[in-house]
């Protein structure tokens, strides 16, 4: 039962993330949305891995790896956003700077 809760929460997070990723213009928001989706997926993953008899170690390993990857990705992204903001004065992509 609690597994389903985890899975549903994961799904919800993913949904929220997707909305943010597409609808938001500011790059930092998009990065956060990306992390939201990531966490959602990992939550779901964990729930999926915890089924059946005993605990399946693999998802945990994978999730940890995934989190690391996502972290480094976010780091690079933030770095780029900062650089962008420094060079062009805005943290939005050139063609979207206009719309909010």
């Amino acid at each position: 039962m609690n597994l389903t809760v985890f899975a549903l929460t994961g799904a919800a997070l993913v949904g929220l993330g997707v909305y943010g990723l597409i609808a938001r213009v500011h790059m930092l928001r998009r990065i956060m949305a990306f992390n939201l989706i990531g966490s959602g997926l990992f939550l779901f993953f964990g729930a999926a891995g915890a089924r059946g008899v005993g605990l399946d170690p693999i998802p945990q390993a994978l999730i940890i790896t995934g989190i690391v990857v996502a972290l480094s990705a976010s780091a690079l992204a933030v770095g780029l956003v900062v650089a962008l903001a420094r060079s062009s004065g805005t943290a939005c992509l050139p063609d979207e700077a206009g719309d909010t």
Partner: protein
Amino acid sequence: MSMMYSGSLAPFAVLMWPLLLGLVPIVPRWRANALRLLPFAPLPALGFAIAGAPGSVEIPDLLLGVQLGTRPDTALLLGMTALVWTVAGWYAAQVMERGQAAGLFASFWCLTLAGNLGVFLAADIVTFYIAFAAVSLAAWPMVIHDRTRAALAAGRVYITLAVVGEAALLSGLMIGAAAAADLQISTVRAAFADAPFGTVGVGLLIAGFGIKAGMVPLHIWLPLAHPAAPVAGSAVLSGAIVKAGLIGMVLLVPEETGWRSMLIVLGLLGAFGAAIWGLSQQNPKAVLAYSTVSQMGLLLVLVGAGSQGVAYAALHHGLAKAALFLCVGMMMLATSAAQRRAVVGLAGLVALSVAGLPLTGGALAKLAGKLGIGEMLSLAITLSSVTTTLVLGWFLICLGRVSAKPQQTPHWGGLFSVVMVLGVLALILPWVLWPGAVDVPRDYVWHPSNMLEGLWPVLAGLGAVALVQRLKLPAYPPGDLLRLFGKHKLRPAFQLPVGNHGARRTKRPALRLLLKVKDAERALLHWPFAGSTLMGLALVLAAFVWIAT
């Protein structure tokens, strides 16, 4: 590798000799005096003919297999041609001015001569065609030799018709050869009877030969070209070269064909029409040219009627007509009244012979020609003597009007005697050759009815001459039909339409479309759109897979 040749090389040598002489002017130093060689070019052929044109040869590797040889009639004409060319060559060597142009003239003279001999020697159609092409096309430079406006205009008409004739002839020969699956002239001729498109083929042949033979209405080049050429050139053109067309018809046009009757009709048309039209000319050479058309018309009638005497008659005409043209030349060179009288005398004699005065070679020619053709035709031929006498009488009058040349020309006498020999031969030779050429005893000539048939038209003609001398004749420049059919002015030079070199095409609409593509690209770049499309695609793909499984 098959053997080089079989048979005797004599005919081949006869043909090669002028070609070799034709190469002489290539050496600049010899160019100036190349004219001296002209009289010697035809000599081997002459000897060959006098010896009775013995032997034939086959050279398989040359061209598509060259075959040379003669039959009685071609042998006759071969000899005549050689004789005419010899005398004309002599005249050219004596009279024409030396120099660069002379070298060119000499080369083409020899080439034309070789072609002219070739049409009588060839036994396969390829060789024949080549000879025919040589004799037609190589004569062009001789026509335009003087470079006068008239000469250039004449040359233009000449070359155009010559090329057209060549093309027609080639097509005709192809049709025949394809049916015969062989290149022998005799075989090809026989094959026309039941060849696919055989009739067309024969028609094309007649057109090709007709142009050369001055058949009405394809004769238009002749009255322009013959007067325009230098005298020696006119002599060979009118005397010998036109016979190439004639022999072509004799050799290749089969007896049983509807075209024959057309030949007769056109022949008669030429025989009388041209003679009458000749009266409208002032230049004696032009008058002679028209008389050539009319005489060729007669010969064509004989061909159409399948007479045996064609070659025999042609022989006489060739000699006589060449002599007449040379007489014009002598007249131009004559200075004293005595010389002028002598020329007119000789010309008159030859003219009478052409008209067919009894006991002259011309009379014999006419008699031989009339043998074995219908009553009506022989009557027509007899009648034609009237017009012939008329036009030649008119020629003599014009000849008398030729203005004398102020200063004396060297050895006029020698030159004249040579011309005289030619003229006399025209009168005599038919007597000598009668036994070999005509298969009725020579006494036939003395038959009173024949004498009468020969005499009265001439007398009538003379009367007519006396008449026309009185009344004022209209004077036209040569080139009858060309002018009739609105060929407004004869242009000397070739002027060809020059096309535009392709206009630039503009491709603006395409460009506008491409720019639209660029805008679309910018839209795709827009993340919200791109992102949602991406999610959409993921689901669509999933849906596809889902549906399928």
